[in-house]
């Protein structure tokens, strides 16, 4: 029996979909079987970021309306056999399904997959309620911006009322230089405000945007800092204890390595 994890944020545009795709890919890299579910009905884009748009035949609403079997609607990823996507419908809206439908689908997916990642739409209305319905765990994505943190706080409050484990936090789009200048909230401030466990922090990396446009998840690229961050998050979800990445520039990392080996920098 797998685990269902909803990925949510409240605010739009903070990187829920990117986070879902990359955590999913990174989990698949570790050999786990993963199903991604796009619940943003009417505004789907998980398939685009994964480069699977052209393969969609059936979608989530078709499954709910019993136009097809769940297995028929699942799209296998190009890169991993153990990674599948259940796309959202583009033509319907969020009222087309209700929380009990989601519970059923997620329950069925959990039987076959180690992880079911549910990409939640922005907002706190029907779409959010649907996405949260079947989840056992939750990940809240926020950027280090006051407005995103405010909405994340609201979401954490709502998630705490649900019958699931306490939510965990991913801070996305960190800009080192701005954080060091104090022009941006730093990760510690976000964590202390939200007072939930930090699952990982991802730097703002131009290659993330390029990769998303190419339909090639950044988590595939072993050199990108964002990719390493996502892989670390996946390992933490798997229960490994991985220290947080250092956000300083490379010199700092080198310093740390030297310090580790007892060499004076």
């Amino acid at each position, binding site marked *: 029996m797998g685990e269902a994890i909803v990925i949510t944020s409240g605010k739009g545009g903070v990187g829920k979909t990117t986070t879902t795709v990359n955590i999913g890919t990174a989990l698949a890299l570790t050999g786990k079987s993963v199903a991604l579910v796009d619940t943003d009905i009417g505004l789907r884009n998980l398939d685009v970021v994964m480069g699977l748009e052209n393969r969609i035949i059936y979608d989530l609403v078709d499954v709910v309306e019993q136009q097809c079997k769940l297995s028929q609607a699942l799209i296998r990823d190009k890169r991993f056999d153990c990674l599948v996507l259940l796309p959202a419908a583009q033509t319907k809206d969020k009222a087309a399904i209700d929380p009990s439908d989601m519970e059923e689908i997620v329950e069925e997916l959990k039987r076959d997959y180690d992880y079911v990642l549910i990409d939640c739409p922005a907002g706190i209305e029907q779409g959010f309620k649907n996405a949260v319905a079947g989840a056992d765990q939750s990940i809240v994505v926020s950027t280090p911006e*006051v407005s995103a943190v*405010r*909405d994340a*706080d*609201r979401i*954490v*409050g709502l998630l*705490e009322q649900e019958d699931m484990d306490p939510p965990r936090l991913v801070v996305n789009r960190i800009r080192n230089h701005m954080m060091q200048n104090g022009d941006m909230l730093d990760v510690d401030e976000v964590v202390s*405000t*939200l*007072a939930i466990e930090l699952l990982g922090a991802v730097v703002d990396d131009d290659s993330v945007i390029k990769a998303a446009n190419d339909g090639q998840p950044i988590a595939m690229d072993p050199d990108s800092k964002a990719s390493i961050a996502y892989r670390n998050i996946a390992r933490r979800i798997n229960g490994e204890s991985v220290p947080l990445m250092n956000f300083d520039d490379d010199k700092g990392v080198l310093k740390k390595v030297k310090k580790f080996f007892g060499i004076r920098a």
Partner: protein
Amino acid sequence: MTEKETRPPRVTIKGTRDGLTFILDDQCSYNELLTELHEKLSEEQYRLDHGPLVHVKLFLGKRYLDDQQIADLKEQISERKNIVIDDIRSDVITVEEAENRRKDSRVTRLAKIVRSGQVIEIRGDLLLLGDVNPGGTVRATGNIFILGALRGIAQAGISGDDRSIICAATMQPSQLRIADILRRAPEKGEKVEEERFEDLECAYVNGQFEMVLDQLQRVAKLRPELNDEWNVRTVDM
């Protein structure tokens, strides 16, 4: 007449510096009491119609009067134009009143982070072990004590008690309200005249109906009524 002289009076009137104190017998019937009060007030020495304003306090002893009876009593005494009733005091209250007072003065402990969009409402005092995040609201009929950071909205004395206070370990509220007096955080760049500490502060309403933020240590002087002295034992070495 003889009977009246032997039994103790049902209404005893004493003069004090602040006015008159009426001590009313709590054993006789209510009607007897009213009758005698009427007689007393009709006596020549208490005919005060033409004198200066007299302030009167009533002591009911262990007699319980309901609202209607108190209104009757007030009306009877107020027949004398220049009498002002300052206070009506009784040694007894109903179980319901006692229960209400207990609820109003109770401290509710809450270990929680009050998050954006959440509103917590408390009857009595609130002791919050946690933060109030921006966009969160705590409301209490009594005082609010926050052992974490207050970054949202706190409203104390919501049923009108402007003696209520708001304390926080970290005081960075977006808005404070005590009874109907409001104060918001200064906008960025807005000039702030008073000295702020932000850590361990209390907010209270001063004599000019302005909300003031001050060091927590000042509370002892400002609100001595906060002390539950009956439950405190000071051990001297």
